[in-house]
């Protein structure tokens, strides 16, 4: 026999259904994360670990800044993070479209911003070389572009990706913190003499 008040059993039943639905939604996100393999920058090769670390750090920062913040402050943070996500995403997509070359076999190469002297004399298309030109020297961009421009291209791709990921994690973190703050505000006593504690 349960000592729960009447209606509590029904609430438990619905909360179990919610848990199952949440699990389903979590499982549904697996292909989304798996597809990021093709979207994330080709350099560094361990960028998946960098992204994972970034998610953890981003979530912790979002929690730190979100905990105890008012609804209005959370809304401002959410807006800031959304802007960061959109700007980061478009910057990343622009850089990806101009700097990343996908070969027939699926390998991805990062092109540089400037060709070296020799390549400049040989290829009119410089620095916008295609797979045809790169095939003339083992698809090795270092033989066509200056090392400085290749490094700049790699770093700009990673910077845009990190901006996008950090924004995305902050949006999710602060959106959850916002919902919690609203729930806490709704559950708190409405006596003006008592301060309302949020977060």
């Amino acid at each position: 026999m349960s000592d729960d008040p009447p209606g509590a059993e029904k609430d438990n039943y619905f909360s179990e259904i919610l848990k199952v639905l949440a699990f389903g939604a979590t499982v549904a996100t697996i292909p989304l994360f798996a597809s990021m393999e093709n979207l994330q920058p080709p350099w560094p090769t361990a960028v998946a670990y960098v992204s994972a670390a970034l998610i953890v750090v981003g979530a912790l920062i979002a929690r730190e800044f979100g905990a105890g913040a008012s609804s209005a402050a959370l809304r401002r943070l959410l807006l800031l993070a959304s802007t960061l996500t959109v700007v980061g995403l478009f910057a990343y997509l622009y850089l990806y479209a101009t700097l990343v070359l996908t070969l027939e076999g699926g390998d991805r190469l990062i092109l540089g911003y400037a060709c070296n002297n020799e390549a400049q004399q040989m290829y009119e298309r410089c620095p916008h070389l295609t797979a045809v030109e790169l095939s003339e020297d083992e698809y090795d961009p270092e033989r066509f572009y200056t090392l400085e421009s290749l490094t700049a291209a790699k770093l700009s791709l990673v910077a845009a990706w990190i901006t996008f990921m950090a924004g995305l994690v902050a949006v999710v973190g602060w959106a959850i913190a916002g919902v919690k703050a609203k729930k806490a505000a709704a559950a708190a006593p409405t006596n003006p003499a008592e301060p309302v504690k949020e977060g």
Partner: protein
Amino acid sequence: MKSLLRIGLAALALPLLAPPAAADTISFTIRPDNGTARFISRRTFGACRLRNIDPWTEQCSGWRPVVGGQPLSLRGQFCIYGEWDDHRTHRGSFEMPTTSGDRNINYPVVPREAKGVCT
């Protein structure tokens, strides 16, 4: 949120655990076998021409020796040169695909004049 994070992190790490893709290889058969052969990338070949160096000679730096029968994992376009004791030569070109496979392409090096893109 916690389980989502866990699954997200695992999904991000999955691609790193995938085995490396196999690559196509090429091996050369020199006929008659008293000859030697070497190959060079098309860009280096073109760069020598640009510097007024005869790209078929060893003055053009970048030539690599062909070891008969030994499979090489290469990608892209190359020029190949073979020569025999009786002054006969082979001037040709070959291209290796970028698709990852597990094939061995055999390239016979037999005396012949310049053919293909390396002229």
